[in-house]
């Protein structure tokens, strides 16, 4: 059995994380969250924003799924009513981290661009901390002691590189 020694930690800086897992009160909190300026410009021009800002009844969803949902429903609505270029702003989707809103650019009913016009902002995330808001980043300057790690994240390891990788050592240690 190979002995694995990771060179680890002499100084430890602990950065406690403010990690915004939503609670069931998310709707209320999110509704009061201020909105950041659009990331990719394009202020929603003359589009029929159907902004029925959903309330707490919406289950928190992953932001990617939310974007997809917004995009899908908006596209459907737009296709029926527009024949030339336009922009359509989707409903606000409540995510674990706050409201997300997607804007579509359409030409003859086809999507030509997708932009996100509303993201949850930092304050919103801070407010939404609940009791298991935990992740901690431990930044370790290395010396000789076990890092006590379960897995390794690094630039993609190919099968060839794997043999020399730390993950390989971890896998061998427990097989």
């Amino acid at each position: 059995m190979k002995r694995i020694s990771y060179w680890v930690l002499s100084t430890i800086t602990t950065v406690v994380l403010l990690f915004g897992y939503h609670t069931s009160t998310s709707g209320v909190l999110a509704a009061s969250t201020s909105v950041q300026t659009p990331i990719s410009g394009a202020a929603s021009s003359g589009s029929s924003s159907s902004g029925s800002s959903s309330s707490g009844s919406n289950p928190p969803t992953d932001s990617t799924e939310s974007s997809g949902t917004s995009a899908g429903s908006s596209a459907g609505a737009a296709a029926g009513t527009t024949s030339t270029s336009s922009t359509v702003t989707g409903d606000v989707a409540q995510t674990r981290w706050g409201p997300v809103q997607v804007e579509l650019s359409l030409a003859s009913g086809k999507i030509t661009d997708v932009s996100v016009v509303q993201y949850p902002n930092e304050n919103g995330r801070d407010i939404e901390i609940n009791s298991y808001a935990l992740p901690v980043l431990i930044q370790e300057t290395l010396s000789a002691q076990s890092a006590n790690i379960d897995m390794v994240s690094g630039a993609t390891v190919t099968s060839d590189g794997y043999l020399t990788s730390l993950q390989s050592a971890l896998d061998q240690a427990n097989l």
Partner: protein
Amino acid sequence: MIERRLERKVVQVMGMPISLALDGLHARTARGQQAWDEAVASLREADAVFSTYRADSAVSRLGRGEITLADCPSEVADVLALAAVARTDSHGAFDVRRPGPDGRLVLDPSGIVKGWAVDRAARALRQLPETDFALSAGGDMVCATARPDSPAWRVGIEDPRDASRILAVLPVRNGGVATSGLAHRGAHIADPRTGATPAAYASVTVLAGTLTDADVDATAAFVLGDDAPAWLAHRPGRHAFLVRPDGTTETTGFG
């Protein structure tokens, strides 16, 4: 807090090692083995559909114009839609199209397929009650803890300058962790807008709710270079650990 007693499994799929750490009720059980088999089968299926190294994959045939998107398995359209959102969100820093040797655009969705495929494969493992798992594909992973008293998975972040060292430990209960950098494969990441190899950071690690999100954002941030921290700060639910070529580290999203 309970002590971990891990079961480890490794297999090679998609040209990279797939590593599983399993702990809890279904570690070392037939049902745990079955879930692992299903996860591996799911990854092999993704490889058969999406591999750009296989001339007969749906994506290779799509790229050559032999078939249309409608002829592909439905997940191809799903992944390309995810890629389109990622391209927009990253202002073009992430793109599944790149210039080929003859200057024509080549479809290469591998930058988004891995995260998506591992998220999908992890579903089989999520079905295991009271069982925690970490499923890694070549250093990018899905972590899940099903038991309230389990410790967080401790994810070591490799030093991009020396793969035998760990720069930080990220405790993750649930989420995806991905690192982009050039350490093991040389200059395989290019800025899709310019073709240049990014150099501002040696590696970027992103923690997000899903590995799909983490992987795409790590790649985009790596390409964005000096603009990465400001961009990441606007991404919902992302936390990032960035390493400069001289070893200096930066974080975003950690309070």
